[in-house]
């Protein structure tokens, strides 16, 4: 069974970030044989003075595979309770990952969390309406992290765009790659230009700067810039939040 696991509001200014906590939590889960986890996607939620985020109001979501959903959920809940930072308000969402499900109501909630101030009551109402395919729980403080946790899982289920945690480092001595070999080596599913358009033809790309991948249209996507007649893996961070 595949699940989206999303956590939010687990940190303070002196702790590790939420993305790192999610990764260590899932590494521990794997060590206990509870499930395996893929890459993590970061979703930006609304920046607003009425929202008590630590520094950027983002939530982190990974896809996991497990044979024991209840045990993995219980482990994650315990892990958050024990390891979330002092003063944080952690929330956990575990959502069934199945393309046959109609996620539309949850996706709507996730998108609202990117543009509106929402409440815990609204998060619980959205989760309850979705039924038993979603678990939502709070593990300390005000528990306000349930809002972002549900939003992040919903956005991931909806294949909405987010940033993939981590960075690819260019290997020494190999600046040129075909898109096919790059895709096979790094697990990239799609290439796109800066405007999000598909780049489908076989291309030669230049990989000389540390590069981030994004999650776009449900696929691990590498963004390429066309500069001076060559395709360059996008080295620059977005200038705008």
């Amino acid at each position, binding site marked *: 069974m595949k699940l989206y696991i999303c956590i939010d509001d687990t940190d303070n200014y002196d702790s590790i970030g939420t*993305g790192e906590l999610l990764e260590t939590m899932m590494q521990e889960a794997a060590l206990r044989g509870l499930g395996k986890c893929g890459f993590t996607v970061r979703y930006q939620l609304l*920046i*607003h*003075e009425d929202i008590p985020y630590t*520094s950027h109001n983002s939530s982190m979501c990974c896809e996991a595979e497990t044979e024991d959903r209840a045990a993995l959920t219980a482990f994650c809940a315990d892990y958050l309770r024990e390891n979330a930072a002092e003063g944080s308000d952690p929330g956990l969402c575990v959502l069934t990952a199945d393309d046959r499900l109609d996620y539309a109501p949850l996706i709507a909630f996730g998108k609202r969390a990117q543009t509106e101030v929402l409440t815990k009551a609204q998060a619980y109402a959205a989760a309850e309406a979705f039924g038993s395919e979603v678990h939502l729980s709070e593990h300390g403080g005000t528990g306000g992290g349930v809002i972002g946790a549900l939003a992040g899982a919903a956005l991931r289920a909806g294949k909405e765009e987010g*940033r993939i945690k981590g960075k690819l480092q260019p290997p020494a001595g190999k600046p040129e790659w075909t898109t096919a070999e790059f895709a096979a080596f790094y697990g990239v599913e799609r290439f796109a230009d800066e405007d999000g358009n598909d780049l489908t033809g076989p291309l030669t790309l230049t990989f000389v700067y540390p590069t981030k991948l994004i999650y776009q249209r449900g696929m691990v996507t590498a963004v390429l810039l066309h500069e001076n007649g060559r395709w360059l893996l996008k080295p*620059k961070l977005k*200038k*705008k939040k």
Partner: protein
Amino acid sequence: MWKNINGSAVFAGGKEAFEDAAQTALRCPLFRPDSEEEWTAEEARSCYNCRYRRWTKESFQCVKGGCP
């Protein structure tokens, strides 16, 4: 460089003053890099990449009170 808004030190340059944010971080003894997935500036040492910045709608607040 810093505006005092309701007792908080808010970066006066907004979200795209990359040079100022880098120069300010170079001078700051309290700079601490955030997780890399939260970086928004190319320069590693930039207030925009600091753990102690809290984004606001227009800019960010320095939770350490601003670089001295």
